[in-house]
């Protein structure tokens, strides 16, 4: 199982760090690509990375509730101020990548990150 720091993730995904700069040493080994909040909450994703196209403030709150290590917003989207502020307030690393969700996931997978399918049945409560 490969661990990568969020700093490395940001590099791989050409991402700008919009929030949580103080936590880029956090390590992740698991990621999920998802645009449905409740699907994020089905799985045991504590300490994982979310890759998403959502930029609303509820997405940030979902990440906080699920205990995610960080979130990548794909497709070059720019979240509104309230989203960035909520991420900052929660200390949630928010990475903004120009890559598509597919390409971002492809690069993370190439580098060794895995999803819940590979992390085994423990990942789904």
């Amino acid at each position, binding site marked *: 199982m490969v661990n990568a720091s969020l700093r490395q993730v940001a590099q791989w995904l050409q991402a700008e760090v919009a929030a949580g700069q103080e936590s880029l040493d956090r390590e992740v080994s698991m990621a999920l690509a998802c645009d*449905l*909040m409740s*699907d994020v*909450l089905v799985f045991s994703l504590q300490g994982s990375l979310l890759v998403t196209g959502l930029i609303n*403030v*509820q*997405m940030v709150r979902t990440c906080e*509730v699920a205990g995610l290590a960080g979130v990548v917003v794909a497709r070059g989207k720019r979240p509104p101020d*309230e989203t960035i502020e909520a991420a900052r307030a929660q200390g949630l690393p928010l990475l903004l990548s120009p890559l598509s969700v597919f390409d971002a996931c492809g690069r993370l997978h190439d580098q060794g990150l895995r999803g819940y399918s590979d992390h085994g049945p423990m990942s789904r*409560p």
Partner: protein
Amino acid sequence: MSEEDRHTADDAQFVQAFEVAGNDFASSGAASIAVKNLLKQVGFAPEITRRAAIVAFEAEMNVVMYGGGGRMSLYLAGNLVRLVVDDQGPGIADLDLAMQEGWSTATGQMREMGFGAGMGLPNMKRHSDRLRIDTTPGRGTKVVAEFDV
């Protein structure tokens, strides 16, 4: 002791209640995060805190989206966390259907925000140790979720 009694006859103390405003998506989730932070502060294990926060969040979003506003109350005992979430909204017409994964009555607007996966009630059941939903169409809904510590 009957299932009914379990929810009331113990020494779980009322700690705090949070108002949840109906249809207020800007604030939605704030009560759940407050519950999570409170549980962290009190010193419950990360797994309990996370599961309770997830259940709180799903319940809170249901109150925001469908319940027209309500209240989330937290009760604590040394070995128990209890969340009570209630509203005076339209109630759930068919609870069995609502518990089905993927079943959702979310509007287009809600789906655009990423809601409407139809996993809310199933997630609440999945992450809690006991879940009771009392609902009366036209009167409201009360959810009691318990976590053994």
